[in-house]
C-alpha cells in the first residue's frame, strides 16, 4: 500500500471500529484490498450510478399510486388540515402517498434526497474527470455522454419536481413557461404546444409525467449503459505511480474484487440516503399546499441543480430588452435562461477538443494528470466553478439576505460585479498556486524532501536536511511530462512560417498555445536527488519558468 492513499486518522479509526465488530473487511479481505482503481475519487461516478438505481426503484414504487392528472377533486384523505380543499388529482394522490400509503412518505423522501445526491455526485464526478484530464483521447466520447447525462438529469429532476402540483411545482412550471414565452416569434406557439393551450391547463402534468417516468429515464439508462461499456473497454485512467504507465495498468481484475467493494459501497450510499429521508424533511408538499394560479410566495426555490439558472435570472438586468418588428425580445429572460446555460454546457462539451486543438496533442492518455501539471486547464476549471458557484448563490440571494441580514439590492449588485471579477481572480490565483506547486515538486525531485531536521554547518550556517524521497513519490513527481504544444510558432530553416500558423485561425491557435504553455515549469533534465544533499538551494525563477518546448 502506498503511503499516499492512507485514509485520514479519524476515518481510519471509525473504519477499524466497525471492522472489529462486523468483519467487513475480513470477509473479503483480499478482494476489498486490491481494489481497482484504488483511489476514492474514482468512486464518485459510482455514487451517481447507485443513486440512479435508488431513483429507479423508488420511482417505480411512486408510480403505483401517483395519478398524473389535473382533474379537480375535493380532498378527503387522512391529512386533516386540507380536508375539503379542492385540488388536482396529482396533488391529492401525492398526499395519499404521504399519509395513506404505508412507507409512502419515506419512499417519497428517499426519491427526492436521492435526486439531490444523484446530481451532486454527477457534478463531483465530472470535476474529477476534468481536473485530471481524464477526458483526453481516447475518452472524449465518454465525456460527451457524461455531459448528456448531466443535462438530462437536471431536466429529469425539474420535471419530477413539477409533478406533485404543489405550490413550488406550480411556481416552477410558471417560470418554465415564462422562459418559453421569452423566445422571440415562436414563444407563444411553443408554450401553447407544451401546455396544450393556456397556462396551466390540463395537459402539462400528464406530459411531464410521461417524460419523467419513461422517456428521460429510458435515455438516461441507455446512456449510462453505454458509458459503462466504453469504460469497461477503455479501462479507468490511473493516477501516476510506480509501474503505472500509459501502456500498463496496475491493479487486479475488476471481478470479483470490484463486485464486493461495489456491493458494500452501494449499501452505504443507500443507507445514507435512507437515513436522510427518515430524519430530514424534504419538500414537505403537505405544508406547501396545492398550487393555484393566484398564489405568489417568497421563500421558495427550485432544487439546487436549477439554482444557477435562477441566479442568472435574478441578477441579469432587463436593460437590454428590445422590440423588433413588433416582437418583444426580452433579453432579461432569454439570456440568463437559455444563453448562459448554453454557454456553460457547450463549453464543457467542446473543451476536450479545444484543448487538443490548442496543444496539438493527439496521443492516447491513460495516466491522469495531476491538476497542478496543467495549470491553465486547472485555472479554467476553477474559473468555471466560481462562475457557476456565484450564480448558484445569487439564486438564493433572498435567503442569504434574510439569514445574514444583508441588503437585498446590495447582494444583487454584488453578484453583478462578482460574476465578472470572480472567475478571473480564480483563474489567476489557481494558476499561481499550480506553478508554485510545480516549482516545489521540482525542488523535491532534485533534492529530496524537507525532513524538518535542522543542522548547523561548521561555518555556523543553519540548513534543513533534505532526505531522499521514497520511490513512489519520485514516480509521481516524474510523471510530469512536458506539455504538448503545437509548434506553430516555429519557422523552418528558410524563415518560412509553418503553414498551420498562417491565417486568422493559425494566429489564434498560436496565441492560445502560447497562453496555454508559456509559464509551465520545466522538469527537463532534473535527475532525482541530483542536487547536493542537505543543502537548500532555490531554483532561480528565470530558470524554473523557461517554457517547455
Amino acid at each position, binding site marked *: 500500500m502506498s503511503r499516499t492513499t492512507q485514509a485520514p486518522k479519524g476515518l481510519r479509526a471509525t473504519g477499524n471500529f466497525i471492522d472489529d465488530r462486523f468483519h467487513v473487511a475480513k470477509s473479503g479481505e483480499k478482494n476489498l484490498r486490491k481494489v481497482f482503481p484504488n483511489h476514492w475519487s474514482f468512486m464518485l461516478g459510482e455514487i451517481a450510478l447507485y443513486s440512479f438505481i435508488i431513483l429507479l426503484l423508488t420511482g417505480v414504487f411512486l408510480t403505483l399510486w401517483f395519478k398524473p392528472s389535473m382533474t379537480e377533486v375535493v380532498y378527503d384523505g387522512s391529512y*386533516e388540515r386540507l380536508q375539503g380543499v379542492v385540488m388536482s388529482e396529482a396533488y391529492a394522490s401525492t398526499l395519499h402517498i404521504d399519509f395513506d400509503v404505508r412507507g409512502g412518505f419515506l419512499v417519497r423522501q428517499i426519491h427526492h434526497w436521492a435526486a439531490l445526491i444523484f446530481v451532486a455526485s454527477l457534478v463531483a464526478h465530472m470535476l474529477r474527470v476534468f481536473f485530471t484530464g481524464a477526458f483526453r483521447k481516447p475518452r472524449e466520447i465518454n465525456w460527451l455522454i457524461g455531459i448528456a447525462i448531466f443535462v438530462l438529469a437536471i431536466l429529469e429532476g425539474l420535471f419530477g419536481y413539477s409533478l406533485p402540483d404543489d405550490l413550488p411545482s406550480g411556481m416552477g412550471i410558471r417560470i418554465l413557461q415564462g422562459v418559453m414565452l421569452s423566445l422571440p416569434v415562436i414563444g407563444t406557439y411553443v408554450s401553447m404546444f407544451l401546455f396544450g393551450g393556456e397556462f396551466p391547463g390540463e395537459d402539462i402534468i400528464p406530459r411531464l409525467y410521461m417524460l419523467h417516468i419513461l422517456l428521460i429515464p429510458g435515455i438516461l439508462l441507455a446512456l449510462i449503459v453505454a458509458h459503462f461499456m466504453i469504460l469497461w473497454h477503455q479501462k479507468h485512467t490511473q493516477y501516476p505511480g510506480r509501474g503505472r504507465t500509459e501502456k500498463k495498468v496496475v491493479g487486479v481484475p475488476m471481478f470479483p474484487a470490484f463486485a464486493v467493494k461495489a456491493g458494500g459501497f452501494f449499501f452505504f450510499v443507500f443507507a445514507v440516503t435512507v437515513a436522510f429521508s427518515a430524519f430530514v424533511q424534504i419538500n414537505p408538499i403537505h405544508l406547501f399546499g396545492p398550487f393555484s394560479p393566484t398564489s405568489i410566495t*417568497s421563500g421558495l426555490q427550485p432544487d439546487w441543480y436549477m439554482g444557477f439558472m435562477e441566479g442568472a435570472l435574478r441578477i441579469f438586468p432587463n436593460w437590454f430588452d428590445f422590440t423588433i418588428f413588433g416582437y418583444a425580445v426580452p433579453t432579461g429572460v432569454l439570456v440568463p435562461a437559455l444563453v448562459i446555460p448554453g454557454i456553460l454546457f457547450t463549453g464543457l462539451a467542446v473543451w476536450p477538443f479545444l484543448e487538443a486543438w490548442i496543444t496539438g496533442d493527439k496521443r492516447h492518455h491513460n495516466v491522469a494528470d495531476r491538476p497542478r501539471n496543467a495549470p491553465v486547464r486547472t485555472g479554467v476549471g476553477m474559473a468555471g466553478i466560481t462562475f457557476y458557484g456565484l450564480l448558484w448563490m445569487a439564486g438564493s440571494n433572498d435567503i442569504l439576505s434574510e439569514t445574514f441580514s444583508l441588503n437585498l439590492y446590495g447582494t444583487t449588485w454584488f453578484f453583478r460585479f462578482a460574476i465578472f471579477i470572480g472567475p478571473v481572480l480564480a483563474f489567476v490565483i489557481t494558476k499561481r498556486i499550480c506553478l508554485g506547486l510545480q516549482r516545489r515538486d521540482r525542488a523535491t525531485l532534485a533534492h529530496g524532501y524537507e525532513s524538518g531536521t535542522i543542522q548547523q554547518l561548521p561555518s555556523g550556517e543553519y540548513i534543513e536536511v533534505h532526505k531522499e524521497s521514497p520511490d513512489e513519490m519520485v514516480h509521481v513527481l516524474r510523471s510530469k511530462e512536458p506539455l504538448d504544444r503545437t509548434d506553430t510558432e516555429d519557422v523552418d530553416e528558410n524563415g518560412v512560417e509553418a503553414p498551420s500558423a498562417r491565417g486568422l485561425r493559425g494566429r489564434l491557435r498560436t496565441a492560445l498555445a502560447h497562453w496555454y504553455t508559456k509559464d509551465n515549469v520545466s522538469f527537463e533534465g532534473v535527475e532525482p536527488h541530483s542536487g547536493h544533499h542537505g543543502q537548500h538551494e532555490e531554483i532561480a525563477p528565470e530558470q524554473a519558468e523557461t517554457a517547455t518546448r
Partner: protein
Amino acid sequence: MTRNGETVKWITARRRHPLAGYVVVILALAFFGVGYAYVAPGADRAEAQTLATEATGDDQTDVARGREIFVRSCASCHGPSGEGTGNGPDITDVGGAAIDFQVSTGRMPSTNPDAQMPRKASMYTQEEIYDLVAYYEEEIGEGPEVPLDVPGSAPERSNFADEEAYEAAKAEYEEAYEAYVSGADDVEVGMELYLTNCAHCHSWSGSGGALTDGKWAPELDDASPRQIYEAMITGPGQMPAFNDMIIQPDEKQELIAYVKDLQNEPDAGGIFNLNRIGQVAEGFIGWTVGLSLIVACAIWITAKQRAHD
C-alpha cells in the same frame, strides 16, 4: 392548538404511522420545555408587577396613566398631541389598533427612528397599553379600533401574583383562542387569501423574507391572532393595509387560522425540518452532509489498511 375533537381523531388515525414516534418525541420535548418555562417565571418581573386581572379594555382603563406613558415615551417623537415631528410620523389617524399593535409587539417606543424596528418583548403590560389606547382615543386621534373580540397575547405568569389566578386566566385565554381559530372552517379560503396577499412578503410558511432597502417582512410565528388582525387593518411600515372591506372580518379569521394551523403543524417528514427554509437548505445539507458522508466512506474503502495482525 388544532381543534380539539378533531385532533384526537387525527392522532388516532396517525398513531401507527412510521413517523409517529418522532412526532411524539417532539411533542413531549415541547411540552416539557414550555411547561418548564411557565413554572419558572423570571423572578424579577414577578415581583415588580402588581396583581392584574384579565382586562377587557373598557371599564377599568386609566386614562391618566395612559397620558403619563404617552408623554414620557411617545411625545418626544410623535409630538405632544400626536401630530408628528421630524423623528416620527403623524399618528392622529392611525387608530387604537395601530397603537396596540406597535406597542404590544415591542416596536414602539422606537429606539431608532431611521430603522425598521424588530419585534421584541413589550415594555408595557397589556393593561398599560389599554390605558394608552384609551388616552389616545380620548385626546389624540381616531381610526381602526382594537379588535377586542380577537384573542390577543397569552397571559404571562409574571403578571399574576398567584398560580391560581394565572391558571384561570390561561384557561380562559385558551378557550377564546380555540374558539376563534376553530370558528374558521374553510381552509381553502384562508389558504388562498394568505397565498395571494401575504406570502410574497412573509413567505409561504410565514417565516418572513427580505424586502428591498434593508427592510424585511418579519416571521409571523410569535404574532397573536389579534396582532395579525391589527397588522392587516393598520399596515405597519412597508406593509400595505387590508381593511375590513378588502378582506372581511370572517375572511381574516380564516386567514389567521390558516397561518396558525400551518405553524402548529408537525413536521411529518422528519425531526429535522431545516427551519422550513426549503430547497436552499436541502441543497446545502445534501452537499455538505450527504455527499461528504458518502465520499468519506469511499475514502475509507479505497484506503482500508489492516490495522491488526
